[in-house]
């Protein structure tokens, strides 16, 4: 039997105490790991949203904002169907300071068509698009043909499958990588396809016509990239003055709004983690202090048999570290089971962009959670280790304590 076996026996033959220590440290590890993963996923999601948005300004029909919040449309995939005259695109392109402008047409599917739920269908013009196309290029390296669609990563279908929208069959050409935003639940197609689908919707009695035009002349949103050096605020004001019955919205404002919500959530999570830690550390200190009396006689025997103070405190610290390691591993595993399968639930509950970090970062966060938990266990046991190593064996054993 070696020192390590001695520690294992000390722990396994005191199952109540050991289980309590493991549970407490597991609780600490769960809070650190889950908290870190959620906060980093939110930050990752915000970064992804900023990268994917690609536009400085979005021009939408004046009544659009009363129908749906643009932030919700982008973040949660809230369905938004609103239209304005396609001539607005030309006016936007002619506005001073506008570098690139690209239109999109939104359509909502019927619930039963594909997904037991409505999905946002977005038509874009591949020739002048700078918002969706770069992102689609990552999954599809050829132009999107007519009656072909690209689906967001959260739409459960496979490439090559047929997808029925308003009784028209569309072939899935590609599936996009996750963005952590509402764009993951959308379906993308070119302008020809969207107009066919608008026509099909019309046949089903769902009208998209606006007062002055027909279907082929409508757009839902125009994404604007300002010229280098131009002030997006000034261009935004110009667009608002120049285009009738439309509103120009700066994306920076939306991102700031999301970032503010995100920092609020992060703060709440940080406070919760700190509260859990303070509570668990206090309980750990109490458990270890109770151990001082319980183990006084046992440790006096070790001293009597020749264990030095350093060896004794080392043994207590190693026991605490072993318990903490077990607790940390169990806690991290439980945390992973809680946080990863329910990513979608967390995302929809927080209503913020949420993108889980890659495997390497997840492993890094798990290692940090394990290390921090072991450290906490050792710190909490340090005082006990020091108190117990000063036990006077002669007196203690005589007292029969």
């Amino acid at each position: 039997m070696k020192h390590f076996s001695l520690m294992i026996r000390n722990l396994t033959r005191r199952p109540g105490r050991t289980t309590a220590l493991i549970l407490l440290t597991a609780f600490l590890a769960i809070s650190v790991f889950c908290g870190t993963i959620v906060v980093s996923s939110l930050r990752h999601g915000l970064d992804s949203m900023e990268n994917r948005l690609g536009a400085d300004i979005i021009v939408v029909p004046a009544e659009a904002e009363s129908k749906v919040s643009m932030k919700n449309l982008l973040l949660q995939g809230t369905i938004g169907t609103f239209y304005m005259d396609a001539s607005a695109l030309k006016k936007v392109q002619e506005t001073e300071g506008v570098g690139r402008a690209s239109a999109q047409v939104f359509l909502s599917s019927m619930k039963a068509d594909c997904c037991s739920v409505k999905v946002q269908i977005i038509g874009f013009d591949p020739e002048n698009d700078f918002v969706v196309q770069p992102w689609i290029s990552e999954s599809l390296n050829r132009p999107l043909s007519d009656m072909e669609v690209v689906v967001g990563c959260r739409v459960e279908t496979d490439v090559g499958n047929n997808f029925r929208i308003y009784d028209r069959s569309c072939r899935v050409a590609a599936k996009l990588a996750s963005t952590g935003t509402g764009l993951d639940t959308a379906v993308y197609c070119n302008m020809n396809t969207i107009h066919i689908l608008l026509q099909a919707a019309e046949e089903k009695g769902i009208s998209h016509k606006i007062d002055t035009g027909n279907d082929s002349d409508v757009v839902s949103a125009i994404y604007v990239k300002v010229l280098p050096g131009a002030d997006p605020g000034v261009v935004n004001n110009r667009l608002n003055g120049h285009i009738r019955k439309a509103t120009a919205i700066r994306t920076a404002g939306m991102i700031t709004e999301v970032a503010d919500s995100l920092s609020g959530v992060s703060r709440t999570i940080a406070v919760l983690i700190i509260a859990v830690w303070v509570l668990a550390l206090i309980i750990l200190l109490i458990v270890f202090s109770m151990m001082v009396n319980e183990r006084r006689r046992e440790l006096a025997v070790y001293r009597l048999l020749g264990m030095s103070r350093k060896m004794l405190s080392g043994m207590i610290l190693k026991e605490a570290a072993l318990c903490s390691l077990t607790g940390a591993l169990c806690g991290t595993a439980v945390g992973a089971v809680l946080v990863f399968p329910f990513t979608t639930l967390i995302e929809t509950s927080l209503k913020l962009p949420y993108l889980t970090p890659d495997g390497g970062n997840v492993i890094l966060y798990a290692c940090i959670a394990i290390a921090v938990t072991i450290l906490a266990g050792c710190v909490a046991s340090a005082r006990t280790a020091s108190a117990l190593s000063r036990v006077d064996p002669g007196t203690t054993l005589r007292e029969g304590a």
Partner: protein
Amino acid sequence: MKKNVFCGILLALAAVIAIGSVTVLGPCVHEDGSEALCSSAGRAVLFDGCTLAVLAALILFMRKPSIRIVLFFISLCVAAVGIALPGTFFPLCRMDTMHCRAVMKPAMIILFASELIVSVCGIIVERNRIRRERA
């Protein structure tokens, strides 16, 4: 008392599965009352959960370790099937954000996997009991 710990856990988990499948951990519910694509998966999960509950109750009343092992083994198989019910054997709605995919599927996989682990533990404990009795 100790020998009933695992079938107690099995019964508790089966109850969570059965009750969960008709409440918060159940399939999607359409506002208009129409049946969602995942409804059949929900019913299958409910049936599987009830089967596990019955098996756990049977184990609780059985004294003979060999019979208990057989029942634990059946529970293990039923739990393994349960893992594959939502999404593999029965279809779910085709959007990741839907309740059946966001809540029911992961929750049921975790619960059925726990049932599977508990059944394995139960088999090991009962096998050790048989060995001890023989010794």
